C-alpha cells in the first residue's frame, strides 16, 4: 500500500496515471450534471415559496460546496507538502487555488442572481453565506497573489502553504463570525437548512449535481496538476524524453 502511494507520488507515474484517469472522471461527471440539470430544471417539483427561482440552487449549492472542497484540498495538500516535503502535493495545492476561485465566483454570482427576485436586490449583506463566500474569494486571491509574487517555485510552494494553513484555521472562524454578525439583524438566508424535509424529487437532482461537479472538479484538478508537474519537472530526463518523443 505504502509502496503504491510512493509510486503514485513519483511525477512520471502520476503524469501517466492521471491521463488514464481523466475520462473516468469526465464521463460520470458530465452524465451526472446532464441528469441533474434536466431533472433540476424540469422534473423537480416547484418550491411553494420561491417558485421556479429555487432551481438556481442546482448550480449554486454545488459551486458553494466546491469552493469549500477546493480550499480544503489546497490546505491539506499544502500541509502534506510542507511537512513531508512531497513536491506533488504542492503541485496539487497550486492547481486547486484557481479552480476554487472560479467556483467561489460562480457561487457568488448565482447567489446574487437568486437574490434579485427573492430580496429585490442584487446583493444582500445580511446573508451570511454570500458574505462568507466573498471573503473566501479574497482568501483565494491572496493565496494566488502570494504565489505569483515569488519567482522561485519551491519558495512559492512553501510560503503559500503557510498561508493556506493559516487560512484553513481561519475559515471556520470567518464563517462563525459572519453568521453571528448577520444574526444581529435577522437577515434572509438563501437556503433553508431543512435537509430531511426536502422532497426527494428535489433532492436527488441536487445530489447528482453535487457529485457531478465534484467529478468535474477532480478532472480539472488532475489536468492542472499534470501541467504543474510538467513545469516543475521541466529539467528532468523523463520530461525531455516525453517532449522529444512528442508524447502528451
Amino acid at each position, binding site marked *: 500500500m505504502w509502496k503504491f502511494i510512493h509510486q503514485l507520488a513519483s511525477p512520471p507515474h502520476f503524469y501517466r496515471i492521471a491521463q488514464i484517469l481523466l475520462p473516468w472522471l469526465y464521463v460520470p461527471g458530465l452524465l451526472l450534471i446532464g441528469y441533474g440539470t434536466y431533472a433540476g430544471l424540469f422534473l423537480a417539483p416547484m418550491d411553494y415559496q420561491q*417558485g421556479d427561482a429555487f432551481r438556481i440552487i442546482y448550480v449554486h449549492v454545488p459551486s458553494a460546496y466546491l469552493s469549500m472542497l477546493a480550499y480544503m484540498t489546497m490546505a491539506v495538500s499544502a500541509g502534506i507538502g510542507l511537512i513531508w516535503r512531497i513536491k506533488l502535493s504542492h503541485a496539487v495545492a497550486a492547481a486547486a487555488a484557481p479552480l476554487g476561485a472560479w467556483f467561489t465566483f460562480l457561487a457568488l*454570482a448565482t447567489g446574487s442572481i437568486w437574490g434579485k427576485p427573492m430580496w429585490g436586490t442584487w446583493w444582500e449583506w445580511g446573508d451570511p453565506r454570500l458574505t462568507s463566500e466573498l471573503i473566501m474569494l479574497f482568501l483565494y486571491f491572496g493565496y494566488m497573489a502570494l504565489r505569483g509574487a515569488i519567482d522561485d517555485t519551491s519558495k512559492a510552494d512553501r510560503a503559500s502553504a503557510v498561508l493556506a494553513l493559516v487560512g484553513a484555521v481561519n475559515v471556520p472562524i470567518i464563517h462563525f463570525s459572519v453568521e453571528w454578525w448577520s444574526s444581529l439583524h435577522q437577515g434572509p438566508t438563501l437556503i433553508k437548512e431543512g435537509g430531511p424535509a426536502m422532497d426527494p424529487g428535489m433532492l436527488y437532482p441536487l445530489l447528482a449535481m453535487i457529485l457531478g461537479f465534484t467529478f468535474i472538479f477532480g478532472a480539472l484538478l488532475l*489536468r492542472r496538476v499534470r501541467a504543474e508537474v510538467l*513545469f516543475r519537472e521541466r529539467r528532468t530526463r523523463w520530461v525531455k524524453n516525453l517532449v522529444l518523443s512528442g508524447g*502528451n
Partner: protein
Amino acid sequence: MDLSMGGYGAYVWTCFALAGVVLVVCEWRARLLQRRVYRDIEVRIKALGDS
C-alpha cells in the same frame, strides 16, 4: 416543460448558462496551461539542446 420558469426564466437560465461558461472556461484554462508549459519545454530543448 415550462421554459419561462414561472416568470423567473431570465434568472434561472442565466445561472445555468453562467455555470456552463465557468466550467468551459476552467477546462479551457487548464488545457491552455498544459499546452503553454509543453511548448515552453519544447522551445527550451530546441534552444539549449536536450542535455
